């Protein structure tokens, strides 16, 4: 039975792509109701099959550790792209705890977002196109998580990039949306180029693309040579893992490649919900987790990952405090949470005596906690976005300063979002509490005290900005006039359903911590479990909420405005996101376009082409000179003939 289920696990992917093909090619002009039925049925079937596979996996694979010590299962694998006799890229389905977890998360959220979109997009003329693209995204994302090798992952990695591009620019007549889609694609593409280089290095030295091979001890030793002589010498393992991580750097929008994510909010809200918070942006985390044994073999890589993650977490949280656009607040909060996940993977490396990282001790909690946070975050962040979408749909504005008093008008949304905000703030017993607690614990256990403090402070900031958003939106009185505010059942149902995992995902803590682990190359010892941590973390969260209540409670803003003016130039600096977008703009337009592309264009037209034209001109000049001999004078020709004849007579002797 289980074998039968695994053998047909391709259905999880096949159903969404079928939906894309049918809607995209066949039902382009069809009636909405047909499309709704088809899209929802197929995504429900995909979800059903994913759940079935997950159950089968839990029972057969995880239930029989003696048969499957590595907890992995490759359902099928076929050669797709042959490079040379020794190197072939396959397409396969690879099941292990994290990929099964992701399959479930993606199909469930995809289904809910499909339902939600029926309500959200109902007046849009491109209704059908939206569902087609959504299905394409589900397909690509599922393909990404079930990849059995790194090239397959790159393939789907690019495909999610494209579906994200198409969905951000869904309203293609809006210039800002078009610009945002281009920005998202180019920034992630920039990171992907490094990812590709990393793949080249790893596949060359590791002699395979397969995760199973790459995660085994041999490639780590094969890769542990140095590359380039002298002072340029770098360790290949560190170099390649960092390059591969660069792909995740872009996709998961870590600083300084985070700039595309806030702009990506130009897309429809269901898209932001599924792609830019719950699933696609965690691809970077997933990639790191997937290659974790290899990453952990390097001395430097995890440290870099940890610093990048921690910095992004607090950096984005600081920016989120000042934003007024509801979706941008959530976008920065996503960035901050992604930072958590990334640094959680990074802190898996234990600091040994004297602060050196040489002893490659690995604390598996960092890995498990990151995956657990991916899981919980997907649900509550998805819900936050869906809730924000419902609000935007109702009041036709993104500006939280123009909202207020929506509690009475949208009660279901209010209560659901309250649960989500408590979860993201990390309040007991909501899901976010457990996963965040696990991350902080991992940081503390591994001895990364600074990172731990950053995580703790970020937790407080998170609670503060989430409740700032919450109070300003729902409490107090309306700060502008709303017409016809109502809750659409298509949209409310998924939001309410998402409260279930948001509240109850904490029950899975033990499962994640003890079972969702990976085969790391070095075994770890036992770690202490400080009992004070949960209380401190909750205390910080309540501190943040309390501060938000003081400043913004009952929807008032006067105290906050006073504080803003006190902050002086600091406030505009943060509000404008530290002017990083402007720096990028400067680099691309002033340096790349004006200092590289334009000179090349000039060089091509003037120098290269000029040389060619010069050759032509010289030939013409020669022709003009020779032409003078042909003067049409019969006497001249004849004299020349005779002179030539006489010359030949003498020269020819």
């Amino acid at each position, binding site marked *: 039975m289980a074998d039968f289920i695994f053998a047909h696990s391709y259905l999880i992917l096949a159903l969404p792509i079928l939906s894309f093909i049918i809607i995209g090619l066949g039902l382009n002009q069809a009636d909405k109701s047909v499309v709704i039925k088809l899209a929802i049925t197929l995504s429900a079937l995909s979800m059903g099959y994913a759940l079935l596979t997950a159950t089968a996996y839990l029972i057969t694979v995880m239930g029989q550790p003696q048969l499957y010590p590595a907890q992995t299962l490759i359902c099928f694998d076929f050669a797709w792209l042959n490079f040379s006799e020794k190197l072939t890229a396959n397409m396969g389905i690879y099941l292990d705890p994290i990929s099964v977890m992701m399959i479930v998360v993606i199909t469930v959220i995809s289904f809910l977002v499909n339902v939600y979109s029926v309500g959200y997009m109902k007046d849009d003329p491109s209704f059908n196109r939206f569902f087609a693209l959504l299905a394409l995204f589900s397909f690509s994302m599922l393909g990404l998580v079930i990849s059995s090798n790194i090239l397959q992952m790159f393939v789907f990695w690019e495909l999610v990039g494209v579906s994200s591009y198409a969905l951000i620019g869904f309203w293609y007549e809006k210039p800002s949306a078009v610009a945002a889609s281009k920005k998202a694609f180019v920034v992630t593409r920039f990171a992907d180029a490094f990812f590709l280089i990393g793949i080249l290095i790893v596949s060359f030295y590791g002699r395979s693309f397969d995760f199973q091979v790459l995660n085994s001890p041999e490639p780590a030793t094969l890769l542990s040579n140095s590359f380039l002589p002298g002072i340029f010498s770098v360790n290949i393992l560190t170099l390649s893992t960092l390059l591969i991580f660069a792909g995740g750097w872009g996709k998961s929008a870590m600083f300084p490649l985070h700039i595309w994510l806030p702009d990506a909010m130009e897309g429809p809200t269901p898209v932001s919900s599924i792609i830019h918070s719950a699933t696609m942006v965690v691809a970077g985390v997933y990639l790191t987790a997937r290659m974790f044994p290899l990453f952990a073999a390097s001395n430097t890589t995890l440290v870099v990952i940890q610093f990048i993650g921690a910095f992004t977490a607090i950096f984005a949280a600081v920016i989120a405090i000042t934003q007024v656009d509801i979706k941008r607040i959530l976008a920065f909060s996503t960035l901050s949470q992604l930072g958590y996940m990334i640094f959680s993977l990074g802190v898996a490396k234990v600091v040994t005596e004297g602060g050196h990282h040489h002893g490659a001790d690995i604390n598996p909690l960092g890995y498990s906690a990151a995956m657990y946070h991916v899981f919980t975050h997907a649900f509550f962040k998805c819900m936050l976005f869906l809730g924000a979408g419902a609000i935007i749909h109702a009041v036709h504005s993104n500006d939280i300063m123009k909202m207020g008093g929506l509690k009475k008008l949208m009660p279901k949304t209010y209560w659901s979002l309250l649960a989500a905000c408590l979860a993201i703030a990390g309040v007991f017993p909501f899901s976010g509490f457990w996963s965040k607690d696990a991350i902080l614990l991992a940081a503390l256990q591994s001895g990364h005290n600074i990172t731990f403090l950053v995580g703790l402070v970020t937790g407080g900031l998170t609670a503060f900005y989430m409740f700032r958003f919450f109070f300003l939106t729902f409490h107090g009185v309306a700060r502008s006039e709303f017409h016809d505010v109502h809750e659409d059942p298509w949209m409310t149902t998924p939001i309410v359903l998402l409260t279930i995992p948001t509240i109850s995902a904490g029950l899975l803590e033990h499962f994640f911590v003890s079972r969702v682990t990976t085969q790391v190359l070095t075994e770890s010892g036992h770690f202490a479990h400080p009992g004070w941590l949960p209380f401190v973390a909750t205390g910080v969260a309540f501190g943040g909420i309390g501060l938000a209540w003081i400043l913004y409670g009952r929807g008032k803003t006067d105290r906050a405005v006073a504080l803003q003016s006190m902050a002086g130039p600091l406030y505009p600096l943060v509000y404008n996101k530290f002017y990083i977008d402007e720096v990028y703009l400067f680099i691309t337009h002033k340096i790349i376009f004006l200092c590289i592309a334009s000179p090349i264009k000039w060089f091509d037209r003037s120098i290269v082409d000029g040389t060619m034209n010069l050759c032509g001109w010289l030939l013409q000049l020669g022709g003009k000179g*020779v*032409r*003078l*001999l*042909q*003067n*049409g*004078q*019969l*006497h001249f020709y*004849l*004299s020349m003939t*005779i002179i030539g004849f006489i010359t030949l007579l003498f020269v020819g002797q």
Partner: protein
Amino acid sequence: MTLSHCITLSLILCAIGVYGILTRRNLIGILLSVEVILNGANINFAAFAHFKATDPTAGAIFPIFVMAVSACEMAVALAIIISMYRRKKRLDVSRLEELNG
């Protein structure tokens, strides 16, 4: 009369012809000079045939060919000259330079 007499005669004729072509500006004059050169060549043919060849008929045939061809040539050339004259009203070669490059 020896072969060298004949060759000298043909050389003189040829030189006269070349001189004529180079100095004459009138097309008719140039044409006449060309005829003189051709006749010089004919004399050569006939003389070599007479003094050297085992079968003199072959050498004798060539002048006849040349005469026939030059007659044709003359006809064509005169036709061109006449039409040229009709068009330009003059036959001065130094002014007829449409074929310059």
